[in-house]
């Protein structure tokens, strides 16, 4: 599903933020990505999201050498990857329903086609009653569930989450990780969830990708 081979990343002429990354992620797996602040978690997620090009090494995703893909193919590849941010990044002028439906609109689906799917997903994440509310009136947990729904509505093969529990209380954090686990189990999505919350890592026994000063080790 994902293979990194001797991958390094530097910004401009600065030092390498990530170095010698070599690992592979199997389809349908769930990994925590952890490490201290500044260790390069977000940079690695941006590499996985194809928002950055590595300075060196080879990245293979969905059996394609990413370095050889043209602009259009990269765009197509990106549509197989969902992303959830710590700060939600919902569009405040759109309702919860419209925010979640956004990836399907981008794909050119008419509303009549996507309405039942979006409604069903919103019911599933517990936002059926809030689908017409604007993000500004949603709680932190509701916003994050809406952001997760938006990330998975187009059924991506890979789901990345950058500190998705960073802005919610510990109890809700646990429930959100359960939601990711359910998505992994029922839909078979490959999930990489970045977090530095130790209680979560201890509660869920998924493999951990640990970044430290740009170097990665994987603990199964």
């Amino acid at each position: 599903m994902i293979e990194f081979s001797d991958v390094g990343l530097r910004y401009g002429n600065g030092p390498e933020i990530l170095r010698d990354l070599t690992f592979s992620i199997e389809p349908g797996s769930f990994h925590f990505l952890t490490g201290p602040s500044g260790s390069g978690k977000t940079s690695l997620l941006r590499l996985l999201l194809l928002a950055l090009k590595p300075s060196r090494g080879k990245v293979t995703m969905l059996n394609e050498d990413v370095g050889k893909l043209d602009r259009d193919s990269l765009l197509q590849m990106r549509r197989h990857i969902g992303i959830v941010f710590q700060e939600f990044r919902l569009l405040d002028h759109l309702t919860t329903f419209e925010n979640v439906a956004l990836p399907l609109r981008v794909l050119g689906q008419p509303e009549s086609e996507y309405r039942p799917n979006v409604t069903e997903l919103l019911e599933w994440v517990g936002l059926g009653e809030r689908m017409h509310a604007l993000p500004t009136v949603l709680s932190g947990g509701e916003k994050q569930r809406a952001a997760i729904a938006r990330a998975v509505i187009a059924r991506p093969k890979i789901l990345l989450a950058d500190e998705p529990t960073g802005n919610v209380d510990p109890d809700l954090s646990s429930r959100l990780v359960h939601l990711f686990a359910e998505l992994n189990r029922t839909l078979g999505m490959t999930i990489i969830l970045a977090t530095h919350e130790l209680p979560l890592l201890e509660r869920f026994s998924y493999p951990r990708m640990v970044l430290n000063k740009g170097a990665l080790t994987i603990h199964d």
Partner: protein
Amino acid sequence: MIKQLLARFTRRGAAAPIVPEHSVAGRTLLLLITIMSFLSAVTLGGVVLVQKSAIAWSADVGREMTIQIRPVEGEVMDSNLRTAVTLAQTTPGVAGARALTVEESQALLEPWLGAGLDLSAIEIPRLIVVQLADPVDADIEQLQRNLQAIKGASLDTHAAWRQQLNTMAGTVVVSGLLVLGLIGVATVLAIIFATRGAMASNREIVDVLHFIGASNKFIAGEFQGRFLSIGLQGGFLGALLCALFFALISMAAGSVLPSEATTQVGFIFGAFVLGIDGTIGVALVVPAIAALTAITSRLTVRRYLSEAS
């Protein structure tokens, strides 16, 4: 209502617009485009008005010539007048010729010499107005040759006047078109800056759209729809203001100016009425400005997105 219709026209399907309709940049751009459209429409209307008046003047003056008979010692004025009228009337292409009466000649001199002056004691030059049936086919050279037989007679074809008039009207039209071009350039530059400002203030939307897999073409289309809507609204408002402006000027010319001045102004500029061609020109400002806004903003958005990604 118009705003809603326009917004609906440019929106994709019934879904909510991805780019917010009431952003500050949008309002500023709408005001700017309204002003630019108004200036374009007024300039265009002015050009049409001047050109129409110049054509009308030129046609009127071109259909008329004047024979002047100066008093010459030993010559009988009335006899010379009759001869000149006959010569004119027998010239091919001439529809008619009429000598102005003494009273009419005195009336012409009134603005310079004042009213109530008895001019019967002095001999003044007399004029014969010659109407041409067809200015192209009229044998003016033959009339000029024949008039040489009458002492003190000269023919004024108003060619110099017409030349001057055409030059002046041409200068005004070219200047107007130049101003129109400059307004167009200023509009394009303003749209570029406003678009970049709008893109910067909507950076979060652009980023989110990129992250969920939207192509630059899709994002540009969403922004272009918004800018096309603003362009249509601004163009429509500008054209409407221009129509009101000309209606007000027309009313003001009729009510504020004294009747003599109104007649003079009316003679020079017509009735300040745009007419069908002027109205069509002003109406065309709406799609022209909308297209200019849409194309400029699309190119700017595409360039911005290329730079951003």
